[in-house]
């Protein structure tokens, strides 16, 4: 499973944190790989559609997530606060993986 994760925006613009991260579950630890797949499944990633641009507010982060798994492919864009709890869990985990990778 290939995950392309980008987090944009927030209270400050940090050039080093604003790059998209490509995560290949094959190169993760067994535990992280299983967790990633489980979270993707739990939020039914391949059947949700989100493409939001918030109209109000400021300093929100916007997440662009693109995942390919065999024939399944989807791309979504959501902004804080992410109401869909399962999706929020996936985003937290992807944030954590991005931190580990840097």
């Amino acid at each position: 499973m290939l995950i392309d994760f980008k987090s944009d925006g927030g209270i400050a613009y940090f050039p080093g944190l604003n790059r998209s991260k490509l995560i290949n579950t094959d190169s993760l630890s067994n535990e992280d790989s299983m967790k990633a797949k489980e979270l993707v499944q739990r939020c039914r990633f391949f059947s949700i559609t989100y493409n939001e641009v918030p109209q109000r507010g400021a300093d929100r982060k916007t997440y662009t997530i693109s995942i390919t798994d065999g024939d399944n492919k989807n791309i979504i864009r959501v902004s804080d606060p992410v109401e869909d709890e399962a999706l929020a869990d996936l985003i937290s985990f992807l944030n954590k993986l991005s931190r580990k990778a840097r």
Partner: protein
Amino acid sequence: MDEAYDGLGITYDFFWNIFERHSIDDEGMPLQGIVHFGKEYNNAFWDGQKMTFGDGDNDLFKRFTISLDVIGHELAHGVTEDEAGLVYFNQAGALNESMSDVFGAMVKQYKLNQSSDKADWLIGAELLSEKVSGKALRSMSDPGSAYDDPILGKDPQPKHMNDFVNTFEDNGGVHINSGIPNRAFYLAATNIGGFAWERAGKIWYETLKDARLRANTGFKRFANLTVYNAIRLFGQGSVEEQAVQNAWNEVGIKTSIKEPLQYAH
């Protein structure tokens, strides 16, 4: 929780005692803040109704309630949205961001009873972990100097129109180009002297409430309106007017008071 509660309380007091503003909407809107948002969440934001603060990952960032100016920054987004509705994109968005830094910095200076020459003019000075090579999220006195770190990168803020950044990232660089109006405020406040909120802050606040500040206002129009309001409050040819004109001039924005006077007709 107490930290956020106290921070919002001080920010409320600041707006009330200095500008006689009764909360975000000037009608006593209850201040709602959410703390410990998400997991190791590295951010604070305003969603149009309430403020939300994360705990930080404790790796690069500490908790986002640790800096009073960050709390003031978020609350001020509510004030700006209520008064001017500055669109969160490009120059209007950078002005929206700058207003939040201006009020955030003043709230901190108010709490510390600091005159503008004694203030550090940093936003989020307590927020970065010891591991980060940097002193804050932003510097209003010297935009571009807040951090230079292997992970975060280098502070991208310009301090002059010559270095204005055109980008689609960050809502068109709202947290980047805000360095320009931020520095203009710093220059105006320090050139005038005394407490920032007494005169420069008053001029900026009156400009925010000025009906001619449209939602899509750019830097130049905003600058002209600050000059117009400086004249209205302190008189033509006053020290305050001169300081404001010079401040904008120094960041590469030439002001003209003829223009805003015409807006009234």
